[in-house]
Every structure is written in structure tokens, then in C-alpha cells.
């Protein structure tokens, strides 16, 4: 954990050497989800609601998933750009060090410019929370925080899976985007608006549904059942990381250096 902090502070200082570029890129990152959000806003301006969900409710969904995505893209960027480590043979160096490979890959890169993305989703969240008539209590606050955390774990897990594939393919594969970018776009709407098989896939295989749809129902008071269970549902998303870790270990064992 201390090592992780050190990796982070060193890379942060390194990025801060190019201060103007950092600020401009962060600003740019702010606008990427902004245009998506504008699209969402205009859709609601025209249609009013979608399958009984109002704009602010969907906005909360959007904010949670984008916040989780921004955080995990910042922290797990090392896995996202892992293919370059494999292709250049750099990964050998990580293997000979007496530390965990996961920690080292995580520490190989942080993308701090994602702070712009994060700022955008925080702004959206504050805006929608002001407009939503939610009666806050301790359980609901915990649920909301857990939702974001569980999202971070799921995205990180997918980044890891995609990185593991690089052990065999050497190159990064575009298909993995379906589950990172695609998962993000998909989960920014409540999953109930999709076809049944999509909802099932994104609840039971990749548990995005546990990150935002199911707990969201609870936050908005659309459920009947013990609050306690709904509070803990996001934890299912956290457990998604476990099989990913196993698969990663399996991949590391099968790693063959490119030699160059």
C-alpha cells in the first residue's frame, strides 16, 4: 500500500512537469462525457421520460457509472496500456522484482488527467441530487458510496481481463472496448430499459446491474424489501475482481517474453 502511494506520487510529480498540457488535457477530459451528457439531456428534453425513469434519476445512474469509470481509468491505466509492456518485453523486468505483479502494473502508469472526467461526473451528481427527493439516512449514503466503489472494481477487473489477453495476443484488442466503454455507455441508463438478455448479461456475468441499477431502485424508494440487502448488493461488484485476479495469475504463468 505504501509502495502504491509512492508510485502514485512519483508519477504525479512527473506529469506535473508538463503543467499546461496537464490542465488542457484535464479540461478536454471534462468535455468528453459532457457531450454525452448533453445528448442525454436533449433526449429527455424531447421525450420527457424513458420507461418511467425521469431525467434526474437517469442522471444519477450516469453520474455513478462515469465517476467509477474515471477513477478506475486513472488508477488502472497501467492495465489499460499493458500491451505496450508486453510487446516491448518490459514485463520481464517486473517479473524479476520481489513484488506483486499486479501492484507493479498498476503502478506503471496513472492517468491523472481523468480528474476532468471525475469533475464532470461530480458536478452532474450534485446537480441531480439537489433535484431528487431522496430522504437521506446513513444506509443510503453508504449505498451511494458503495455503488461508486463497486463500479471502480468492476472496471478495473475488466481492464485486467483485457490485459491478461495480451499475454496471448501481444497486441491490445479492440473487442475489450465493448465491455469497458460499451459497459459504461450501457450502464449509464437504468438496465431495465434494455432487452432481457442484455440486462441479465450485465447483472450476472459482468455485474454492472449490481453497481447502479439495483441499488438505485433502493435509493429512489422503488423497492420493497430489507434495506440492508440493497445496501450490500454493490459488494457483489467488488467480488467481481476475484475471478479476474485468478485469471491474471493464470496469464502471468503462461507469459512468454517477446524477447526484444
Amino acid at each position, binding site marked *: 500500500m505504501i509502495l502504491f502511494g509512492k508510485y502514485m506520487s512519483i508519477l504525479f510529480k512527473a506529469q506535473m512537469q508538463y503543467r499546461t*498540457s496537464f490542465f*488542457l*488535457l484535464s479540461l*478536454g*477530459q471534462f*468535455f*468528453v462525457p*459532457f*457531450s*454525452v451528457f*448533453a*445528448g442525454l439531456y*436533449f*433526449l429527455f*428534453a*424531447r*421525450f*420527457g*421520460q*424513458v*420507461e*418511467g425513469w425521469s431525467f434526474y434519476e437517469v442522471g444519477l445512474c450516469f453520474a455513478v457509472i462515469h465517476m467509477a469509470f474515471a477513477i478506475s481509468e486513472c488508477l488502472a491505466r497501467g492495465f489499460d496500456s499493458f500491451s505496450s509492456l508486453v510487446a516491448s518485453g518490459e514485463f520481464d523486468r517486473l517479473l524479476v522484482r520481489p513484488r506483486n505483479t499486479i501492484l507493479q502494473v498498476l503502478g506503471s502508469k496513472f492517468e491523472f488527467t481523468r480528474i476532468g472526467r471525475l469533475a464532470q461526473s461530480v458536478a452532474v451528481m450534485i446537480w441531480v441530487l439537489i433535484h431528487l427527493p431522496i430522504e437521506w439516512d446513513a444506509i443510503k449514503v453508504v449505498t451511494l458510496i458503495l455503488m461508486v466503489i463497486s463500479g471502480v472494481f468492476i472496471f478495473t477487473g475488466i481492464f485486467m481481463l483485457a490485459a491478461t489477453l495480451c499475454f496471448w495476443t501481444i497486441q491490445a*484488442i*479492440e*473487442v475489450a*472496448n*465493448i465491455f469497458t466503454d*460499451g459497459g459504461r*455507455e*450501457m450502464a449509464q*441508463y437504468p438496465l431495465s*430499459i*434494455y*432487452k432481457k438478455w*442484455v440486462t441479465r448479461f450485465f447483472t450476472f456475468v459482468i455485474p454492472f446491474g449490481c453497481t447502479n441499477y439495483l441499488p438505485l431502485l433502493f435509493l429512489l424508494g422503488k423497492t420493497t424489501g430489507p434495506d440492508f440487502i440493497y445496501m450490500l448488493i454493490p459488494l457483489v461488484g467488488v467480488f467481481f475482481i476475484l475471478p479476474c485476479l485468478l485469471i491474471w495469475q493464470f496469464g502471468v504463468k503462461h507469459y512468454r517474453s517477446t524477447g526484444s
Partner: protein
Amino acid sequence: MKPYFSVIKLRLLYGLQYRGAAFAGVATQFFWGFMYIMIFEAFYSHTHTEPPMTLNELVAYVWLQQAFLTLMALWFSDNEIFDLITKGNIAYELCRPCELYGLWYAKLLAQRLAAALLRSFPILIIAFLLPQPYRMMLPPSLTTFLFFLIALVLGLLILVSISMFIYISVFITMSPTGSLLMLGVVGEFFAGLILPIPLMPSWMQVLASCLPFRWTMDFPFRVYSGQIPEDQAWIGLVVQLVWLVVLVILGRFCLRKALGKVVVQGG
């Protein structure tokens, strides 16, 4: 003209080598297409007012977008040219007995064509065979289809001339990231990639019509489904031509200016 055509031919052959990447791209595009259609379907299912675009037209719009994404996406760029500029190899390019603007234009055009050739046909063929409501409609008549083809070609030419500005900006900023990001976000939004133009509020539609981006994707795709009737499509084609001429002239002028100031550091 001959050297430009050979550049196009060479680049086409080169681009067609990447079949594996194209296959992965097709899968990704299908996912996005399905997702967008499902989202729009959900919005359409409970609406009380008549939307400006029928669901069928919208489905065709989405599939065309996905099929021709590599033809029309601004972020799809050539890193070779960026390297040429930042690393100073531009000096070799300048020695060639061709005009630089034309040369790069041909190169970029061919790259997009190659990528699109590999991806668009599988997507379109499958999209025609899908069950309703995902099936792509045929254009209402042969003339609409011809209009669509002309509009698509003009749209592509406009897009390449817009993307030239990204490369020209690298002469000044030395890094493509910023301009690529900014132009990419604005361009995508106003080309209707995130939200189809007809679904935008009217003030936004006016704004979109004043910018060139709409004429690259949105216009041809709406001509295809007949959402823009033929008598209005004529006017659109003229607007496209005007934009093309303006952008090319402006681009050439900027490139000449930028080249006048270019500094090649030794090595």
C-alpha cells in the same frame, strides 16, 4: 493527378492487410449499434408526441453510422504524419515533387477507404438480415440511393479536409492530443454521432447546420432513409460542395503558412 492516385492505391492495399483488426472492429460496432437502437427504442416506446424521425429511419441512421464510422470519425488519424511533423522528417516530404496538401489528402482518403471497405460491408449485410426492429430499411427509391451515394462521397471529402486541419495544427502545437480531443468532441457531437441531429432542440439544429460537421455524416444518412426528401437533398448537395471548396482552399492556405515557418531541427 497520377502520383496522387498511386498514393491512394498503395495506401489502400496497405490498409487492407489489417483484416484481424477489422473483424474486431465489426464486432464492436455491432454492439454499439444494438445498444443505441435499444436506447432509442425505449425512448420511442412511450412517447406521446410524434418524434421528428421514425424508428425505422433512426435504425438506418444508426447502422449507417456504425458501418461508415472509420470513414467519418475524426479521431481515426494517421500517426505517421504526426511523427513526420514532430520529428522533422517533414523535410523529406517537402523534397517530393508533389504538393503536400494533395499528397496527404490522398493518403488520408485512402486510409479511410481501406478501413471502411473492410468493415462496412459485413455490418451492412448483417444489418439487412436482422429481425425487426433492428433490420435496416432499403432506401425508398433508386434516385434516393444515388443521392445518398453522392452525398456520402462529398461528405467523406469534406471530412478529410476537416481532418487536415488537425495535422496542420500540429505544426504549431507539436502534439496532436489537444486538437484531436477538442475537434473530436465537437465534431462528433455536431455530426450527430451522439444524438441524431433531428432529435436535437431546434436552436441546436440551426447551430449544427452552420457548422461543416453535420454535412459529413448526418446529411447523407438522412438522405438514405428519405427523411430529407429529394427536392431538399439538391440544396444539401450544393451546400456540401461549397463547404468542400471553402475548407480545401482554407486548408491549403493554412498549410502554406505553416510550412513557411517550419523549423527542422537537425539529426
